[in-house]
């Protein structure tokens, strides 16, 4: 196996003392392409947020010592973005250069040309001047992928990137994901469509708060493992006693 880009060591992340990710250990190999699947409330999004440092680890550690913050790109679920905001497609994509432009530096002609090229790569030629509110959900997801192309990150985290996205856009954006994989970038995606996972993602983490299975996709997505994942109770047990596993 390769060196790990990211390793989890007995990680527990809680909301209000109730664990959403429970004693999870393992590693995402450098250059791997991993799908995270599991039932609703299994802690998939929570895990990505914890990796981004948006949620604190209750116990355990997340190690990505070799990666700086600017080496990580994160695509949260779409709901958090104001799609009526008065901003053009090109301006959104240019934000992918944040590491180079920050709050104050100018956008050079070269950076602008790269943004236009990124838009072309997701097949949005001639969309530069369009306000984002005129875009469909699929087109907007393409814009966000173009922005991530410019971020040029070593580790890419995608939270349900293809939910409510049409089939054609999904296929095109999966091509982008595969290109990232070919460039030896580490990609982790939360997904629901098991067929898609089997077809495109070599590694899978099956999560039901605890890790059910983690490894080659074919060995993880077995009927037995999926049944065990489904048995996870979705509701919190309000009277649950403190966890007895060693911290």
């Amino acid at each position, binding site marked *: 196996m390769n060196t790990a880009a990211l390793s989890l060591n007995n990680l527990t992340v809680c909301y209000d003392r109730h664990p959403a990710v429970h004693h999870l250990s393992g590693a995402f190999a450098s250059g791997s392409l991993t799908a995270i699947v599991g039932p609703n409330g299994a802690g998939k999004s929570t895990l990505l947020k914890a990796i981004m440092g948006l949620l604190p680890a209750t116990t355990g550690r997340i190690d990505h010592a070799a990666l700086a913050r600017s080496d990580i790109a*994160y695509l949260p679920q779409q709901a*958090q973005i*104001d799609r009526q905001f*008065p*901003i053009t497609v090109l301006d959104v994509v240019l*934000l992918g250069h*944040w590491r180079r432009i920050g*709050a*104050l530096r100018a956008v050079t002609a070269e950076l602008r040309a790269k943004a236009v090229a990124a838009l072309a790569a997701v097949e949005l030629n001639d969309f530069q001047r369009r306000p984002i509110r005129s875009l469909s959900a699929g087109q907007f997801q393409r814009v966000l992928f173009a922005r991530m192309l410019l971020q040029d990150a070593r580790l890419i985290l995608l939270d349900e990137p293809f939910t409510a996205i049409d089939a054609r856009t999904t296929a095109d954006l999966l091509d982008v994901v595969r290109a990232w994989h070919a460039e030896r970038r580490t990609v982790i995606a939360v997904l629901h469509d098991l067929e898609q996972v089997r077809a495109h993602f070599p590694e899978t983490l099956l999560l039901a708060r605890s890790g059910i299975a983690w490894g080659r996709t074919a060995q993880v997505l077995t009927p037995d493992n999926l049944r065990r994942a489904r048995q996870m109770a979705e509701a919190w047990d309000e009277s649950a006693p403190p966890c007895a596993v060693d911290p």
Partner: protein
Amino acid sequence: MSGWIDGLFAPFVEFSFMRRALVACLALGLGCGPVGVLLTLRRMSLMGDALSHAVLPGAAIGFLIAGFSLTAMSLGGFAAGVTVALLAGLVTRFTGQREDASFAAFYLISLALGVLIVSTRGSSVDLLHVLFGTILAVDDASLLLVASIASLTLLTLALIYRPLIVECFDPGFLQSVQARGTAYHLAFLILVVLNLVAGFQALGTLMAVGLMMLPAAAARFWAQEVWSMAAVAAGIAVLSGYLGLLLSYHHDLPSGPAIILTAGMAYLLSITLGPRDGLIVRFLPRQHLQT
């Protein structure tokens, strides 16, 4: 005809208090317009209102200490406004209560405190001054204050423009590439309070927020990028100041409401005539374009 044109300029040529009021409106509009646009985009339209009320007890305490002194009232108002903004922000950060609710709670406490202070210690005339302002009595010192606040506002906005916009369009992204946008949010709230303080002694605490929100709400019907919206809003604010002053001069009306009502007219016109989603564009049958 010449008399009509004369009416547009004569008041300002003739009277220095009208000139000063005009310059004050110009400076106020330049600062308030862009701040208002960002407030609406951050879905904080009503928080501007809340903050304008929050300024009151500080101004009242300043008034009690130093009489009708601009410096004392402005400093007091600024301190009260920032305190309310900070407390509301802290409650939101540490308890998770939504910011509109915590803002409402603290501004109401602040407003009641302000009215209590003014009514126990001042006369009702003073209260009217604080509530409704006296733009026609703007002196050189207050003019300097208003102009300084406008300059500081535009400079600061230029410095924090990019992160401020990202923080409001896609906060998750800013968090993932840099850090939380708390510092920018705070700097922006301070600008809001400063502009309300600039506005309150010219237009009064109740009216100050009008020159901030009405042009911003109108600008949305004319432009579709933040910078152009800010430019349109500043233009509408300045024009409302000018026309409102004329209106108040010729018809002997109080200047504050005249200015804000003019801005209100600009808003209604924008809803109707504006090319971006305006009512006429929306309901006028127009031939669609080729695909």
